[in-house]
């Protein structure tokens, strides 16, 4: 096999969201599949421009919620009817109307957990160390600057073309990101 490129990516820096979105679009049109874009806030359409698929988080959350509800109700039914049945104020052992609140809370709780961790894991976080952190100016990615990275591992990556592509998007600067 060929030795891997010592660089992780080529990176271009922009000062406006519009520029970044345009560049991302261009990269995608040029066939790049592993381009990454960084912005200080959520930019509508940027992820789509990079070709992100529709998120599956909502589906996970729904499942989590259903599981939570079932677990919650089963817990109450099992404790009150099976494990240690006791006469409480002459109410039936299985007094379902009174099991509703806890069931509801458990539904919300597990759904919330799923949504939260699905987002985190989906983003591969926590990941404290990443090549881009060593890139010049990257601390501005959380302030007011916008970045586009073309990854060297991308099968479509070809040095001269990539350089040309990035320059064509009029970045305020371009750097190489080491692995």
């Amino acid at each position, binding site marked *: 096999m060929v030795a891997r490129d010592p660089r992780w990516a080529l990176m271009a820096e922009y000062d406006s*969201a519009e520029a970044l979105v345009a560049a991302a679009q261009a990269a995608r049109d040029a066939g790049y599949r592993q381009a990454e*874009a*960084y*912005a*200080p*806030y*959520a*930019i509508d359409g*940027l*992820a789509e*421009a*990079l070709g*992100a698929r529709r*998120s599956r*988080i*909502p589906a996970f*959350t729904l499942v989590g*919620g259903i599981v939570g509800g079932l677990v919650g109700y089963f*817990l*109450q039914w099992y*404790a*009150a009817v099976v*494990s*240690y049945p006791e006469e*409480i*104020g002459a*109410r039936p052992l299985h*007094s379902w109307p*009174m*099991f509703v*609140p*806890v069931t*509801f*809370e*458990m539904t*919300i*709780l597990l*759904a*919330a*957990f799923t*949504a*939260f961790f*699905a*987002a985190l894991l*989906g*983003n591969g*976080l*926590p*990941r*404290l160390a*990443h090549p*881009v*952190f060593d890139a010049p*100016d990257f*601390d*501005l*990615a*959380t*302030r*007011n600057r916008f970045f586009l990275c073309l990854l060297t591992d991308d099968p479509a990556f070809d040095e001269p073309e990539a350089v040309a592509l990035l320059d064509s998007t009029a970045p305020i600067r371009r750097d190489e990101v080491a692995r």
Partner: protein
Amino acid sequence: MPSPRTTDGEVLRPGWGYASVTAKIAGLVLSRPVRWPWLAAFLATLAMTLVYLGAMTWLFIKGVGIWGINIPVGWGFAIANFVWWVGIGHAGTFISAVLLLLRQKWRTSINRFAEAMTLFAAGMAGLFPILHLGRPWFAYWLAPYPDHMNLWPQWRSPLVWDVFAIATYLIVSALFWYLGMLPDLATMRDRARTRGKQVAYGLLALGWRGEARHWARHETAYLLLAGLATPLVVSVHSVVAMDFAVGNTPGFHSTIFPPYFVAGALFSGFAMVLTIAIPLRRAFQLQDFITEVHLDHAAKVLLATGWIVAYGYLVENFMAFFSGDRFEIAMTVDRWTGFYAPVYWAMLACNVLLPQVLWWRAARRNTLLLFVLSIFINLGMWMERFMIVAQSTSHDFMPSSWGLFIPTRWDWIFLAGSIGMFAWLFLVFIWLLPAISISEMRELVKEERDEPRPPARGSSHRSVQHGGSDGRA
């Protein structure tokens, strides 16, 4: 420097850029502009917190008998405080979640500290049910777990519902809060200049780097949490209301309670938001972010919820007589004329009478007046909780067992202590974390810019006079 073109719609004064917004809010934490007022408040509230912890220790040693509670009034201040704090703990999530779903721009600059307030208030609330137990060291018996006694919680008790509701609410609010703060923590990491802060914020930021797909998932999850938190907000205080509504005591046993408690919760919650926001924006020069518009909107919510609460009072009294239940009637008459009547009328004054000034725009934009009013509403809402808890039980079915609850000094210490600890936690929060969501403010900046006026150039030019250069500083 109020801009000449300030209009109703403005939730961010013009002239702010990404960098300046970032610098301003991050600066509040990193280069703490206001030292002395903060330090004074911090020390004062810290002292109150220590007193509070001391009082708790004494309570655990001696027992709840140090309070004024008795038979028939088994619940006194502790539960009144609990309900009051839970109520206050509602505004935050309501603002963040509901207003987010409703796409209310004005939530942006107040949601972060409102959520923090929610967490701390709910925390204060969560303490009281444990403190008020006769044997607090067995509080964990309210949680279901397999034990060698083969015993479980009694699921029909609203107190168990409480445990689940409050716990869920605390956890979900915390997740929501943290998820929203993640990008800002990254900002802090990158703005921090000392190694220690970089590491601390770096760890908390979990390596957030603002990648486009991350933002997308982040937004989805954030919206989902908002969607889940919205019914949660309604459920939590409904469950708390059921602590009373499920009981049979005249004054407890009322179907209006859940909606009326939720409304009351928002009422007191927004009052507390104002109580906090007004000094905050003044102390930290945030008038540009928290504008009169925010206050105005909050005031309108106050007015609306205030009327729902008033309706609640009306229905309570009406139903007492309409039902023809002699016990309800006697209890209601006692409310009007009995030992606790002064509290009742003062409560009505605070919660129904005073808020009516908010019909006037001038009043809604007068920060001092709003501040005072918000405090009165907090007071009034506390008195409402107290009336429900103490007066109802003091005057129930058996005249031969009627008795009064007279608070001891310990009752007052626990009320004051919880307020002090709440304030202390909040001060710690604005000391260590960005009190306003930076990333969302950037979006706001973007949206402001995309609007035809003011022209983009102008903005960057104006931004210079803010000292917040958009170039590499």
